[in-house]
């Protein structure tokens, strides 16, 4: 083995009723991002630059839950978070509570490269962004009509959840959705859950691993809620042996320190990449639903999920390429 490998994801936990057109759109975006990364790898761009590049592309597209197209807080605003890690020296950067920075993953990169810290949040992160001269926009740039609609449904779904004496009116779409679709994640019916955190992990020809994850977080989340995506060891991890990016129910991923555990199981139990991925998905998630993508320094790629689906794509230097949802 050896050679480069790349994997991207657009979230674990997929609405089984997702219209075919949306599925095709998602696959096209994943393919486009994969090709961007492949082209960069062929030009010998280091892994850390490739993951940033690819996640920026995912953030800029409104389709998935990151950057533009992020899920909305309970107040209808957007608060984004991201993290990035460079496996060679395990340097890392993360941001939370970002509201005006166009590409949170790039801000996370700057925290890693240009600040004495690893993690900046809220107004401190925004101040740093201003100092660094990154591209900033109004918060409503990130808000899409579709998510405004989703937020409304999520609020309805939450209030329905809490009062079981009230029969579900058949006109209530959230109620109908919940009735037809028993899948719930983080307490919300899958149709309004908006799981599509994005991420990318890469190993380059020199065997250097890197990973990055970016998200708008949970639909209808409390202001200030931080999930797994910016937490090194939970949503993102990269070391000498592998790179990992996770997605799904944030709280479950945090409890499982999912990303770190893939690497720990390789380091401390000597498992190979796929075995490590399978192990953590099976053993570490208990009732939580999540997924992850991973690459090894040997040029392998793997993914695993216990949710009903995960938007993903992966490719290796020897010509293997696959994009999938289920």
């Amino acid at each position: 083995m050896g050679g480069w490998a790349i994997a991207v994801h657009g979230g674990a936990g997929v609405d089984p009723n997702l219209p075919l057109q949306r599925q095709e759109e998602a696959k096209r975006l994943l393919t486009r991002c994969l090709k961007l990364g492949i082209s960069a790898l062929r030009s010998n761009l280091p892994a850390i630059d490739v993951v940033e590049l690819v996640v920026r592309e995912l953030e800029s597209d409104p389709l998935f839950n990151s950057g533009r197209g992020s899920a909305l807080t309970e107040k209808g605003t957007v608060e984004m978070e991201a993290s990035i890690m460079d496996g060679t020296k395990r340097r890392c950067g993360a941001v939370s509570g970002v509201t005006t920075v166009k590409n949170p993953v790039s801000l996370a990169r700057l925290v890693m490269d240009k600040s004495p810290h690893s993690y900046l949040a809220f107004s401190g992160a925004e101040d740093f962004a201003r100092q660094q001269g990154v591209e900033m926009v109004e918060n409503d740039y990130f808000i899409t009509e579709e998510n405004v609609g989703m937020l409304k449904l999520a609020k309805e779904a939450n209030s329905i959840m809490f009062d079981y004496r009230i029969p579900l009116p058949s006109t209530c779409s959230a109620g109908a959705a919940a009735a037809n679709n028993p899948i719930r994640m983080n307490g919300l019916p899958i149709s309004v859950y908006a799981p599509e955190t994005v991420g990318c992990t890469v190993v380059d020809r020199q065997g250097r691993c890197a990973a990055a994850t970016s998200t708008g977080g949970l639909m209808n989340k409390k202001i200030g809620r931080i999930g797994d995506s910016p937490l090194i060891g939970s949503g993102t991890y990269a070391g000498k042996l592998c790179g990992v990016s996770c997605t799904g129910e944030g709280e479950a991923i945090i409890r499982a320190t999912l990303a770190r555990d893939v690497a720990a199981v390789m380091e401390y139990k000597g498992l190979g990449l796929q075995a490590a991925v399978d192990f953590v998905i099976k053993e570490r998630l208990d009732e939580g639903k999540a997924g992850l993508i991973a690459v090894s320094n040997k040029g392998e790629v793997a993914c695993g999920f216990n949710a009903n689906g995960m938007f993903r794509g992966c490719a290796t230097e020897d010509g293997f390429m696959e994009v999938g949802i289920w």
Partner: protein
Amino acid sequence: MGWAIALHGGAGDIPRSLSPDRRLPREAALRHCLQLGVSALQSHAHPLDVVELVVRELENHPQFNAGKGSVLTTDGTVEMEACIMDGKTMRCGAVSGLTTVVNAVSVARLVMDKTPHIYLGFQGAEAFAREHGLETVDPSHFITPENIERLKQAKEANRVQVIAQQIDYTQPIKQDEKSEVLAATGGSGDSQIGTVGCVAVDRDGNLATATSTGGLVNKMVGRIGDTPVIGAGTYANSYCAVSATGRGEAVIRATVARDVAALMEYKGLSLQEAAAYVVGERVPQGTAGLVAVSASGEVTMPFNTTGMFRACATEDGYTEIGIWPTEQE
């Protein structure tokens, strides 16, 4: 098997020349907090309640870097963070960016107990604390003269570091410049101190950990350290409970707390071996320390810094309170 408890008041470059008026009150506080925790365990309090109780006490003590006595951000303000985790259920709670809440660890506990989330930050965390009627005060309550001085020294050290970079290294450094650089960057020595924490296990093997801090002196506003990052500064599962301290950035990269447990779980190391390995091999010298207890009632308190304010006790009567390495180490 029996209960065990360990607590810390921060690892760092604590000089052996620390004056009695700075050393004695802290030793007394460690002793007092240890006794509080031991009594609670003897009364069969759940480890989660024990660690919260002890950390609240450490937060209230003005000479540790948490709650009152927190180090200051570069703007001269206080931003506190904390985390708590239950080993059996792996439930956890964390907060960052608190400015008016007296006990950050109790906010973290509420996040764990009363929300479907794990981590709340900044204004959201403050609002949540207020909603739940937690005690809040004016931000100036947390600021101590000691910390105003530390911030001043840290800013001075940065300034001198900048000057040092401009010195022409092809010429020998003049004696007075060199001592100025050394004095400024060495500072009072204890400006590296970060964090308080407590870990406990009861007779039934229930484990819990809690950590709380004001963070890094002169930190950028909004900087989050290892304390609230599950797996970095704080972690508990069915094997052990860990609370770490030191240079946050180093603890995060090494996922210190999780790695102690992972080494026990995946490599079969004992608590002592796992903790010693992580502190010895996974973080740079001078950057970290931790306290940990195992499900079977063992305790360990390794550190690779000059010192770590610490105390521990086990049901069979062992007690230890210390700052610097003991003779055997």
